[in-house]
């Protein structure tokens, strides 16, 4: 396929050349060599040899020498000197046979010029091999981001603004402003500044206490107090949590694989926490980068350094992809592109298929960079041990391996084919034959690349060495036993396994597989190297200690990236930090310093900051401190652009104010959680940063507020304002729940104080008189609109719909998290053996996960506690959704351990329909008829009573004194819908009993007709239900009005925006 970006430039260029060539040819009858220079060389160099030349010989054609043209390719000679009409190349140029170049037919004068050269004998200067024009021009080299980093002198501020300046940043900024004739904005009001500063460092609102201590922020009018506060806040754990948020966007962090299954990555969060720790410890940035690229190489005994290599693991992964080669290449591409994006702000992706059309990034550079990852090996068990330990271990291991080589080879020959044959998951035979061959080989016999591919493929299935004995034939099993005994004899020389870390990365070994460019038929090997423009030679790879067992390539890449001489790295990270605080970087395109991005508005400031940053030991905390204590950052945000500014700089690139900003999704979440008291200052682990990032199902609030997809590196979030955000904040249940939680904190206060404290908590200021009046009026109005039904107890009983055969009955309306618990505390009457449960229900919804909607249960949900639970499965249940099931927990015939089992009926309930459901258990009967289920659709007059039987294993000890609970087990796995009746018999009832309504050994028969007697027992045994109402949840109209006020203020722009 042909990539066409930028073809317009080519076309324009072609026209210029064409007219030049034509005029040359017409005016001066030149000799052969001149014809070559005029007609042949430019055309071949510009349009042909990229694909038929130096590195690629597409269609077998090499057009860089005369011999190559004469030899031609798959279709024959390209030219016949003297005979343009017999020359295939001309046919192709004229689009008569092959159409070349494929990007579009060249202008006729160019083609006819070429024909003139062929007709004249196709002269070619001796020993001339055509080479591409040097793709990197002097102009490219002059591009700002490739210039060596220097530390410019700090400009002297103009006298008028000398006192305005608080540090060097301000002196650079005021210089630009003064040049434009713009003055800086006045200082931000103290309260607004306190919020701005606090969010900037912690991502959280200032606490009530901090507002108090700083006198509503006014203390911050003293710059020394600002400095002290900045230091204090930088020392809190919240700083690292907030910084990690930005970093995780950059490194495409997620807790799932993406693709269809979106499988969980339970260990990924170690990386997230590592980032939080690293930022909080103010780990020097160069070290932080080194650890992520090569932690396994530079500090193998340091667990954090090993965890850091998870940076190399965050690519999307498809668990059942049989195109193993394709998936592996995709992973290497991801590493190449992410590394260039994150650390270098170089958009190398374009160069994957061709030289970058706008930036001096060669296709070769893409694969030179990729070569640093050529030996890449994801691993689920990387030893964490220092070099000495690794070396000692390796020595012992080697000795053991040598001593046992023959035994293990023979073992492998017996075991491997059988293990693969009995593998579970995806079958090894599903892969193409070449991959199967790699899987079948012993790891020792594989080439490095074969091992990488075999390992990637092997993630799709699981082998079971523990079952080998049953899978091998007797002879093989016996031989294996013998070999294992022989092997055990060497156990004394076998080293003890080292502690390991999962979900990390290292190299396949000390030798890297070759890397070549796609489409290069010669498969010329590409050695690791940096951007040609900066360092054209191959990279020097220092060998590492053999015990590390890697190539050292990633260390070499890391050393180059973190070298103080690298013109990109420090500029990139300083620019990112600047973006955090001012909304845009000094160069606006933080992930792309190329020609399609924007050059810095303050190049000297960027360079000074980058140099200062390196000089100060790559300390991010110092960098934040410098920025946040500047007068530039202290500027007000509400300054209006006057005519001059509106004309000169409407986008505020010269920093004549601080841009106001909306809170991020994480900040909105954390702000609300803080107000609700869920997050306390100094406490970690509960903020939005700790929510799992599921690629296929992101958190709804974060996603609505522009969380990136975490599939590629993202250096800047979109800033959208959408009705979907408004719907989520106005109607979403989470925020309403939080509003109630906040309301409860101030529940005991009179209205006036409630309003006052609420404003203080949310906005860090008291309510104005107008606001207090407005809030009071709102609450009064709202309260008056509270419907009568909401106040009365009766809300809990509703009419049971559509019972075709029965008179209308009432039902209790249950929902997860609802206010009612209905239970039978008298446990002694509950059945010890056979039992039958009957109920009349409707089901409103099922859980989205695998939780069960419980109709009734005596089981607590603890797999070690006996009991039973009768319910309906949910969306992700392995028994498929809406399946009526019985969970039994007790003992089985032959085991003393408590056994848990699910007995499915495979009878399914539709949502929203009334049903009679029952389960009858004969505890002794372990046949297919031990458990019988009954279901009848009560919405249809003639609906049959469906039955299903199943077997069970638990046959004793099913009850140890837990209460019977209606509609939930403990407080989870709750019913959502109506329950009109519940009957329990301490006997197995037959179909006939059920149809006739006969009871044997009744325990209870709960009914729900009288609001005052929910769960009245009609069996005559007086086992009435105990009904507990969660008092805390019984909200008065005033409570509801207060919660509505809180909810409105949680939607308030004063909360969602920072001045």
């Amino acid at each position: 396929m042909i990539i066409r970006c930028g073809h317009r430039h080519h076309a324009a260029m072609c026209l210029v050349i064409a007219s030049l060539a034509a005029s040359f040819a017409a005016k001066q009858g030149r000799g052969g060599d001149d014809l070559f220079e005029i007609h042949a060389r430019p055309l071949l160099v510009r349009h042909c040899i990229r694909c038929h030349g130096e590195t690629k010989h597409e269609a077998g054609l090499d057009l860089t020498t005369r011999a190559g043209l004469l030899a031609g390719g798959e279709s024959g000679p390209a030219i016949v000197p003297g005979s343009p009409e017999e020359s295939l190349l001309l046919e192709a140029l004229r689009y008569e046979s092959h159409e070349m170049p494929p990007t579009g037919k060249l202008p006729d004068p160019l083609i006819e010029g070429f024909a003139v050269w062929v007709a004249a004998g196709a002269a070619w200067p001796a020993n001339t091999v055509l080479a591409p024009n040097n793709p990197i021009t002097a102009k490219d080299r002059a591009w700002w981001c490739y210039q060596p980093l220097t530390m410019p002198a700090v400009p002297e501020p103009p006298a008028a603004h000398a006192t305005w300046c608080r540090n060097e940043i301000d002196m650079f900024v005021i210089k630009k402003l003064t040049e434009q004739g713009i003055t800086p904005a006045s200082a931000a009001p103290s309260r607004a500044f306190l919020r701005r500063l606090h969010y900037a460092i912690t991502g959280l609102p200032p606490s009530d206490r901090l507002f108090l201590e700083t006198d509503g922020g006014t203390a911050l009018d003293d710059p020394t107090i600002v400095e002290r506060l900045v230091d204090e806040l930088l020392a809190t754990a919240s700083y690292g949590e907030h910084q990690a948020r930005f970093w995780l966007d950059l490194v495409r962090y997620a807790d799932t694989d993406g693709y269809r299954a979106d499988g969980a990555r339970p260990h990924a969060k170690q990386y997230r926490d590592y980032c939080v720790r690293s930022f909080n410890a103010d780990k020097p940035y160069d070290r932080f980068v080194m650890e992520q690229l090569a932690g396994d190489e530079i500090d193998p005994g340091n667990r954090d350094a090993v965890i850091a290599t998870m940076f190399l693991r965050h690519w999307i992964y498809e668990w059942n992809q049989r195109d193993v080669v394709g998936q592996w290449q995709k992973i290497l591409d991801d590493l190449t592109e992410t590394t260039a994006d994150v650390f270098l702000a170089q958009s190398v992706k374009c160069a994957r298929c061709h030289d970058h059309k706008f930036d001096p990034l060669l296709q070769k550079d893409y694969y030179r960079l990729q070569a640093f990852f050529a030996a890449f090996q994801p691993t689920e068990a990387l030893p964490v041990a220092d070099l000495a330990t690794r070396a000692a271990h390796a020595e012992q291991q080697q000795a053991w391996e040598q001593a046992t080589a023959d035994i293990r080879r023979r073992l492998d020959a017996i075991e491997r084919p059988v293990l693969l044959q009995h593998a579970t998951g995806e079958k090894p035979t599903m892969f193409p034959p070449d991959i199967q061959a790699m899987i079948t080989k012993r790891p020792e016999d594989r080439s490095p690349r074969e091992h990488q591919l075999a390992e990637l493929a092997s993630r799709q299935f699981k082998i079971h060495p523990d079952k080998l004995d049953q899978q091998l034939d007797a002879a093989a099993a016996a031989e294996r036993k013998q070999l294992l005994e022989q092997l055990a004899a060497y156990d004394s020389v076998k080293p003890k396994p080292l502690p390991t870390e999962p979900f990390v990365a290292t190299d396949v070994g000390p030798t890297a597989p070759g890397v070549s460019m796609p489409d290069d038929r010669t498969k010329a090997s590409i050695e690791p190297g940096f951007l040609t423009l900066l360092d054209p030679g191959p990279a020097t790879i220092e060998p590492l200690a053999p015990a590390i067992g890697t190539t050292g390539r990633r260390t070499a890449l890391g050393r180059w990236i973190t070298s103080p001489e690298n013109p990109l790295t420090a500029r990139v990270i300083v620019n990112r930090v600047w973006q955090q605080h001012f909304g845009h970087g000094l160069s606006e395109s933080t992930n792309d310093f190329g020609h399609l991005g924007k050059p810095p508005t303050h190049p000297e400031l960027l360079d000074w900051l980058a140099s200062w940053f390196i000089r100060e030991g790559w300390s991010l905390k110092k960098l934040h401190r410098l920025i946040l204590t500047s007068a530039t950052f202290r500027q007000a945000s509400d300054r209006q652009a006057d005519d001059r500014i509106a004309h000169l700089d409407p986008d505020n690139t010269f920093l004549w104010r601080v841009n106001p900003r909306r809170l991020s999704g994480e900040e909105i979440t954390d702000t609300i959680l803080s107000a609700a008291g869920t997050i306390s200052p100094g406490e970690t682990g509960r903020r939005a940063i700790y929510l799992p990032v599921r690629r296929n199902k992101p958190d709804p609030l974060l996603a609505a507020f522009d969380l990136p997809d975490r599939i590629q590196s993202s250096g800047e979030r979109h800033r959208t304002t959408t009705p979907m955000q408004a719907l989520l904040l106005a109607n979403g249940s989470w925020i309403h729940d939080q509003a109630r939680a906040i309301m409860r904190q101030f529940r005991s206060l009179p209205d006036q104080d409630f309003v006052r404290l609420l404003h203080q908590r949310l906005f860090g200021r008291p309510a104005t008189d107008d606001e207090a009046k407005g809030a009071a009026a709102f609450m009064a109005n709202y309260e008056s609109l509270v419907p009568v039904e909401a106040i009365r107890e009766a809300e809990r009983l509703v009419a049971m719909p559509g019972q075709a055969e029965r008179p209308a009955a009432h039902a209790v309306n249950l929902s997860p998290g609802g206010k009612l618990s209905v239970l039978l505390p008298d446990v002694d009457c509950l059945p010890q053996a056979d039992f039958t449960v009957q109920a009349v229900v409707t089901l409103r919804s099922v859980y989205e996960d695998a939780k069960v909607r419980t109709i009734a249960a005596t089981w607590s949900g603890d797999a070690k506690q006996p009991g039973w639970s009768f319910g309906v499965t949910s969306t992700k249940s392995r028994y498929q959704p809406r399946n009526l099931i019985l969970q039994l927990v007790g003992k089985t015939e032959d085991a003393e351990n408590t056994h848990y089992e699910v007995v499915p009926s495979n009878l399914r309930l539709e949502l929203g329909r009334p049903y009679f459901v029952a389960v009858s258990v004969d505890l002794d009967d372990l046949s297919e008829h031990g458990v019988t289920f009954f279901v009848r659709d009560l919405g249809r007059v003639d609906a049959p009573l469906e039955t299903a039987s199943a077997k069970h294993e638990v046959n004793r000890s099913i009850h140890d004194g837990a209460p019977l609970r209606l509609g939930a087990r403990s407080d989870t796995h709750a019913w959502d819908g109506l329950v009109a009746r519940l009957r329990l018999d301490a006997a197995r009832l037959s179909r006939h009993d059920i149809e006739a309504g006969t009871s044997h050994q009744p325990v209870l028969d709960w009914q729900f007709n009288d609001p005052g007697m929910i769960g009245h027992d009609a069996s005559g045994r007086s086992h009435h239900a105990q009904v507990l109402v969660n008092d805390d949840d019984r909200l008065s109209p005033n409570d509801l009005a207060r919660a509505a006020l809180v909810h409105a203020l949680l939607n308030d722009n004063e909360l969602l925006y920072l001045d």
Partner: protein
Amino acid sequence: MAFLTRRAMLTSAGGGFGAVALAALLGREAAASSSGPSPLAAKPPHVAGRAKSVIFLFMEGGPSHIDLFDPKPALDRLAGKPVPESFGRVITAMGEFDSPILASKRAWKQHGEAGLWISDWLPHIATQADELAVIRSCWTNGINHSGGVCQMNTGTQFAGRPSLGSWVTYGLGTENDNLPAFVVMQDREDVVVNGPRNWGSGFMPAVYQGAALEVEGPPFPNLAPPSHVTAAQQRLALDYLQNRNRRHQKGRDENSELDARIRSYELAYQMQAYAPEAVDLAMETAETKALYGLDNKETAACGRNCLLARRLVERGVRFVQCYHGAGSKWDAHKDIEGNHAKMCREMDKPVAALLIDLKRRGLLDDTLVVWGGEFGRTPMSEKGDGRDHNPTGFTMWMAGGGVRGGTVHGTTDEIGLHAVENRLHVHDLHATILSLLGLDHKKLVYFHAGRPERIDANEGHVYEALAT
């Protein structure tokens, strides 16, 4: 009685917010004029296109082209034998390349004036043969559902790029502010492969992403307040909030986002009022419902989606995607007879009804209907009576929206394994769909991370022969 008194007082006080809410409902123009244009404002196409909206009927799991639209007599001849080497080896998802060829048990007939070959599994769609432009030469790269579905939606197998619906929305905006511009439906509750990522906006802002219509209850998430908040209370609260926000906005005029946010609450409120009406099928006649098969359990789910799709494009929604067989239900690795017979029964009548209904309402000319899955199925058998995934050759069809009906385009080889003549890659299909909407896929560019991105990764060609 104190309650009633308070309520009476409220009613008089409430005239204010009621009036505001009504103004919000009616005053689209007024609300829209107060700051910059919405990114979803309707935009003219690059050239006049025939289609104004798209209904993409996505048969998820991969329907068998060689049992539906692309008859292959050679299959009977070669049944039970391995694929001759001359057809070229391919990697298949389940490694079934070497399995014997499976005959098609279908009875084939030519339909319509144009005489399109359609199998006996699709008697209703066959009545619409003269509306269809059948493309038998589609091909794609993804051999798995995830990659295939992702590619049919976004152009590549790999996540992270905007969906076709997002590109169309980005290019044309919407004709109706009160509904999402890009709506997605599915016929059953199982999760569509890749989930909501399929209608995600990738690297574009979230305003361009598809909104999934819920199978039950309120059509979109968060469209209604929690049950403990009454409509009157919600209006009161919204009014209170907007008042506060307007006061907050004073002195902050330079922050245009504040105004946009105030406006977004008004838009949300309108959506809350309009969206339920748009999806209320009670407004449809019994005849229409029967036409779509709503009266039959088997066809009801797909029929509902097709009918909703018509109601949505009628109301100006730009791009509607209906998944049939959500959760790879067309994926007939075994028992293709049982599987496809059932899937076809579910889908055939409703899809035919959609074409009939659009036509009789004069909507078909403006509406491009696209039918197909993420790939086709192999001529080779799997598990004896099923078929594996076939990305190298499969059928899609389009109808309405400027498409020349009653036509067949491209071919596959003798056994339906590889597309041969007029091969249309997914990129070409996307470019062609955009072209029918009047959008030039080469000009529909979004700059992302320094790259000018297109739906077709710079590789697509418009297939001109499809258009009238």
